[in-house]
């Protein structure tokens, strides 16, 4: 399931809903992203997440669908916020539930890596030096590239 919203979310409640009644689930891997106070050394007082609504939902759904095809998932969830957020606020939550933990962990990492490089969100940080758009990180590209399939079965 995919949700793009301005409001905060409750990780515990979301997980309970996700796994409720499905006793084939042996484990859930979860990642929660938070606003840090010190990207690049200049104090961050807040950030604004801009996004491209029509494309965001479409891309997140595609990424989730890809994860479901690659791993035997019993349930999955991506929640991403937009709008103004302050240090310590939750930005994103990704969860993948499977019979075994390896599939859950891998799918969760995959979802985060692809979300980071494909979902159309942009961070505008309010710093000591004024507002500035955050640059994409090479390490995120490298992390996403781990999951690109080669050869005739390639998904892209």
């Amino acid at each position, binding site marked *: 399931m995919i949700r793009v919203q301005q409001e905060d979310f409750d990780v515990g409640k979301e997980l309970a809903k996700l796994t409720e009644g499905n006793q084939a689930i042996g484990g859930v891997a979860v990642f929660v*992203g938070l606003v840090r106070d010190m990207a690049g050394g200049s104090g961050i007082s807040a950030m604004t*997440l*801009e*996004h*491209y609504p*029509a*494309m965001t939902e*479409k*891309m997140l759904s595609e990424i989730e669908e890809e994860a479901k095809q690659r791993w035997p998932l019993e349930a999955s969830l991506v929640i*991403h916020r937009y709008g103004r957020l302050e240090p310590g606020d939750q*930005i*994103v939550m990704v969860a993948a539930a499977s019979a075994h933990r390896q599939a859950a962990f891998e799918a969760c990492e995959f979802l*985060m890596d692809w*979300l*980071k*490089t*494909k*979902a*159309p*969100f*942009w*961070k*505008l940080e309010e710093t000591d030096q004024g507002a500035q*758009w*955050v*640059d*994409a*990180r090479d390490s995120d590209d490298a992390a996403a590239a781990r999951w690109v399939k080669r050869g005739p079965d390639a998904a892209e």
Partner: protein
Amino acid sequence: MKLLYFAWLKTKTGLAEENVTPPAGVATVGQLLSWLEGRGPNFADALSDRGAIRVAVNQAYAKPGDPIGPDDEVALFPPVTGG
């Protein structure tokens, strides 16, 4: 054709969205970017680093050679930084 600009492409062009009718001969994503670049200093500046620009046609990532038409929604934005 509807154009959308996000993040610093919005800041630099001064536009969030606009409707344009490019001349005949502007048939691909790459040709569209070249035409936009010639529309004035703001656009020349915004589009100068072609490697830093991502394009989506109808909400799907597109390459320079991909075709575009009058009914398409074309979005220009920098590499994404969510998550």
